[in-house]
């Protein structure tokens, strides 16, 4: 078990930073490269790293597969929900100009929520696929 020590220690240091970096990429997608997809993949990579180093069981306890499956749908619903919000104010579907007090603010809000929905769905799908692949053949 001795040679497990270095991955464990390094991962314990790195995983919070990876998650923080994922959050940064998600919300600063407006000002630099990034956005929903990249952030979702980085989140999923952090969880996969945790599962690889600390075992699939503890990762499953931390993030149960049923919860992640629900998250897949939640992200997509946030995205389409923003569009319906525009419909409710009598504008076109996914028209962000009406979401704020002036068009630029509306665009900012719309892009924020849309990217959030994208990030949630992408990370949930990647983690789900990893659970499916890694959990096979052990029952």
């Amino acid at each position, binding site marked *: 078990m001795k040679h497990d020590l270095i991955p464990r220690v390094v991962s314990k240091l790195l995983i919070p930073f990876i998650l923080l970096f994922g959050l940064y990429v998600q919300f600063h997608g*407006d000002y630099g490269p990034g956005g929903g997809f990249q952030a979702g993949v980085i989140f999923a990579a952090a969880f996969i790293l945790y599962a690889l180093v600390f075992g699939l069981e503890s990762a499953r306890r931390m993030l149960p597969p049923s919860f992640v499956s629900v998250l897949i749908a939640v992200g997509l619903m946030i995205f389409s929900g923003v569009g319906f919000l525009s419909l409710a104010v009598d504008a076109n579907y996914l028209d962000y100009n009406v979401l704020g007090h002036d068009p630029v603010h509306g665009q900012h809000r719309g*892009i924020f929520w849309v990217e959030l929905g994208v990030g949630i769905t992408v990370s949930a799908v990647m983690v789900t696929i990893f659970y499916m692949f890694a959990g096979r053949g052990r029952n």
Partner: protein
Amino acid sequence: MVTALAIVRLRNLFAVVMLSGIYSLLMAVIFTILDAVDVAFTEAAVGAGISTVLMLGTLALTTEKETTPAHTPLLPLVVVVVTGAILVYATFEMPLFGDPSAPIHHHVAPRYITQSGQEIGVPNIVTSVLASYRGYDTLGEVAVIFTAGIGVLLVLSGRTLSKKGAASAVAETEAASDEGHHET
């Protein structure tokens, strides 16, 4: 290119997967040189991260070596060379690399570049096009990822079958469908 050729020749699948990870990283570097920073970010994260992990998972559940083909693949080689030659002939009409007067830069792109600052106020033009000007496409894309996740859930959610288990399961379904045929 060298990594791609090495992927073709190698038999050990584990090495092939590692090389494909390196190939994705090299592609990400090339994308950065070509000014496509968002794309490079995504390609590095996705290709060198997720794809490699999934392929390694598949290898852990299947074999690790590729068996030698019984016959030399001459016909595919001929097909590939002929298609390549036709494509090379077609590229002589294409615009030169990096030419600012190429047709691609004239129709919609100047509007996005000049108007995106005032209409949306977001510095990253790629994000503004992706999330606002072409928001429908992004909706479809999220739907595609959603479907892929659901598909993997459906395909891989049964309990593990061994070979004998698979054979007996196939025999069971055949017997059930036979009975169904007899009844109707």
